[in-house]
């Protein structure tokens, strides 16, 4: 049991260090890794949304899935499964993504933002933890999306296969895709470094079952620190890395790709926490499970992808806070983003209640 805790901590440290290295090689600050941002960039690169500053096929995402896929084959854990409320999972994925884009990051980026000194992300963490606690209450009352079942081999191979297709497109036919020329989407580590980073993190996350939601959840439900050690490892390594490179800056204002509206940072991450508990894992974990052949997680990722496109097409995603020379502040959550965040929280609660049934004693 000690070994597993050590493995989580070491993997977390390595992943945090890799995230900082990706920033060094060109990714936006505090965004070495961000599952939400990078899936959003992929949605943009394929023309699903037209936000010109966030369009790119992020090799990190392809690497994460393929790293988990290869590792699950080696460990004889690759197992095509699915059939547990796929439409509900698609909708949950959609909502988690829209909420993450109101905050401006998935739980993994939230940790990386905290490690960069971004106090807005600390407020996000408070909301995130509250969302997880709400999810735990439903789990304890019997919340479940019911069982998955074995599926044909091809069902499990399709999602990793899609990553290979995207990789081939990125390498052989980039002219077919849309890439940002300015903004976060234009800031990127070289393809093979990004791909290698994804493969390593995907393999580590598959082996250790790292999950940003599972840490707080398991601590609350089972007094089990194991997964939280991964979370802490990432935080520590990224913090040290940011200090070494001189990127650490403790503040609310002036943080990279972040906004300063505390209420909406907290509420959006509440939705991400609750929705992710309802899905059984954070966005990173869903990518890893999809790589292992879980088609419910693949459907969840499709929900993320479509949610990201809608978030930009309907102006629900927040813009980073910018302060002009005359002191005027722009950016922050949009009116649509605020309305939809509330709607998402209500809908999540409705879905949680609808899928909670008090188990009768047998």
């Amino acid at each position, binding site marked *: *049991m000690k070994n*597993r805790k050590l493995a989580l901590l070491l993997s977390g440290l390595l992943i945090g260090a890799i995230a900082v290295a990706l920033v060094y090689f060109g990714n936006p600050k505090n965004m070495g890794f961000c599952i939400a941002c990078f899936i959003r960039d992929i949605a943009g690169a394929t023309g699903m949304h037209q936000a010109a500053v966030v369009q790119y096929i992020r090799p990190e995402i392809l690497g994460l899935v393929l790293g988990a896929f290869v590792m699950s084959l080696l*460990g004889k*854990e690759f*197992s095509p*499964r699915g059939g*547990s409320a796929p439409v509900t999972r698609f909708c949950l994925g959609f909502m988690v993504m829209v909420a993450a884009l109101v905050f401006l990051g998935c739980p993994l980026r939230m940790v990386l933002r905290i490690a960069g000194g971004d106090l807005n992300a600390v407020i996000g963490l408070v909301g995130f933890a509250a969302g997880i606690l709400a999810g735990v209450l439903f*789990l*304890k009352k019997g919340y*479940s*999306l*019911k*069982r*998955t*079942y*074995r599926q044909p081999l091809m069902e499990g191979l399709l999602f990793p296969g899609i990553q290979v297709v995207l990789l081939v497109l990125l390498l052989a036919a980039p002219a077919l895709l849309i890439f940002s020329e300015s903004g976060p989407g234009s800031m990127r580590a070289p393809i093979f470094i990004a791909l290698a980073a994804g493969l390593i993190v995907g393999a580590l996350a598959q082996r250790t*079952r790292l*999950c940003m939601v*599972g840490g707080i*959840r*398991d601590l609350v*439900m*089972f007094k*089990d620190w*194991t997964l939280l050690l991964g979370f802490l490892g990432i935080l520590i390594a990224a913090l040290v890395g940011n200090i070494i490179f001189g990127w650490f800056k403790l503040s609310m204002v002036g943080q990279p790709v972040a906004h300063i509206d505390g209420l909406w940072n907290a509420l959006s991450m509440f939705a991400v926490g609750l929705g992710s508990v309802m*899905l*059984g*894992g954070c966005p990173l974990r869903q990518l890893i499970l999809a790589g292992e052949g879980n088609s419910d997680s693949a459907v969840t990722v499709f929900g993320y992808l479509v949610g990201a496109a809608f978030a930009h097409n309907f102006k629900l995603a927040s813009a980073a806070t910018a302060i002009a020379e005359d002191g005027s502040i722009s950016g922050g959550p949009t009116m649509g983003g605020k309305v939809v965040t509330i709607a998402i929280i209500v809908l999540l609660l409705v879905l949680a209640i609808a899928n909670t049934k008090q188990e009768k004693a*047998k």
Partner: protein
Amino acid sequence: MQIDARGLSCPQPVLLTQQALKSQPASVEILVDNKTAEGNVTRFAAKAGYSVAVREENGDFILTLTK
């Protein structure tokens, strides 16, 4: 007592185990269908003072927890 936790998302297999162990039964059988759940249930049961024997059957794992 046997609990079928096959195909359930995290952390339901462990949660069902936790609920089953509340009454401190002498032994319980937990069925899971993946290594993640097998590991999670095994660790939880060990922490609760149960010894765990695992056997694999048609891709499922049958965990026998005894006090």
